[in-house]
């Protein structure tokens, strides 16, 4: 339950999901889900995927604060 809410919390800020697509996602094996997640996040213009040092460097250059989400 907590996991689903947390996922919603994160995904709702980066993309709008089709409920049907989410149900299909749940049927995929875990390896496929992780790889799909990587592909999706790579296309995000808001989120840096799994690279904290890159984020610190960008924050330094732009004087913006960082939001680092562990999920």
């Amino acid at each position, binding site marked *: *339950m*907590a*996991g689903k*809410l*947390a*996922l919603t*919390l*994160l995904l*709702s*800020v980066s993309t*709008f*999901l*089709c*409920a049907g697509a989410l149900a299909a996602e749940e049927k995929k*094996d*875990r*390896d496929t*889900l*992780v*790889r799909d*997640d*990587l592909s999706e*996040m790579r296309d995000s213009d*808001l*989120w*840096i*995927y*799994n*690279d*904290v040092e*890159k*984020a*610190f460097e*960008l*924050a*330094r250059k*732009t*004087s*913006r*604060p*960082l*939001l*680092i*989400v*562990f*999920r």
Partner: protein
Amino acid sequence: MQVARPQDLKLKRLLKKFVCVRVVQGNSLNLELFQFDYDLTFAAFFMNADRTIYGRYGTRSSQEKPERDISMQGFVSAIEGALELHASFPENRRSLADKQGGKPRYPAPERYPTLKRYTPLLNYGGKVAQSCLHCHMINAAEIELLRSKKAPLPDKILYPWPLPGALGLQLSPAERALVVNVVPSSAAHEAGFRHGDRILSLEGQPILSTADIQWVLHNAPSPAKLTAVVKRAEKTTRLKLRLDADWRKSTDISWRGSTWPLRRMGFGGMRLKDVWDGDRKKRGLEGLALWVRHVGQYGVHRAAKDAGFRKGDIVIEFDGIRERLTESELLVHIFRKRKAGDLIPVKILRGNKRMSLRLPVR
């Protein structure tokens, strides 16, 4: 199609003011910088580029009902607070210094003996899910290490990240550190907290979320004296909290992933749950009555099975204890009072039959 709610749009606008990064692995996690409740499934840090921590977000108190602990509205409120701290930086740097923890035992999780099979990078070309070191494994690895050294488990390990409830405070998940209930006769009540107080700081640290309060509590000694500043009717009030030696004791650890190694070592792989009041009445049970919900079947998880325990048994006496305790409290008793190799006398009910068994502690 999921419909975007107004707070989602507000969140999206706010996030554009940040550099946002998502971390999906515990592998190679910087344990000195990122100290948070590793049993969470969602946790967030607000930081400056110089690595100063503005605050944390993410709280959990049980396996069910996450809405009791976190909400989109509460997250938005914490983000707004982080932006205020960023605007006041670096003048506020000193008040933020203690948000950073001390030097950890290891710089990265895979340095723990039980986690050495993990590599710093995920194996995206192969079995990527299996290559992922989950954050809850970090707590478990620390417990395993201390136990293997026959070292006592400190309260900070047994009762990590205490909730404000340990003080007698209930906070709104939808607001920034807003008190919605104060338990009578609790430490918070004695300190003078009131319904409607907004906690601005604790031990001098600005508070953005329940997680920020938990950070202070996680690092507080037993007993402890803590100073809080609250906003009440447009005025700020300073309150002094006095916590006794057992203040962490009411913390429920049963939902935590990292409690599983404790169950394996202390309960021989059993999972226990307090028999609910209606069933107690029906069976004539008073005092200790813990239902055996699960018995491990394999390898190191089957010690209770080998000792004769079965799913459905009810533990009515444990190591001489007959008063009503939760699973968490009983686990803590074992790790405070017993050592590996001890045999614990246990009395159970199986149906209507009373039986005596002996449970080995690992």
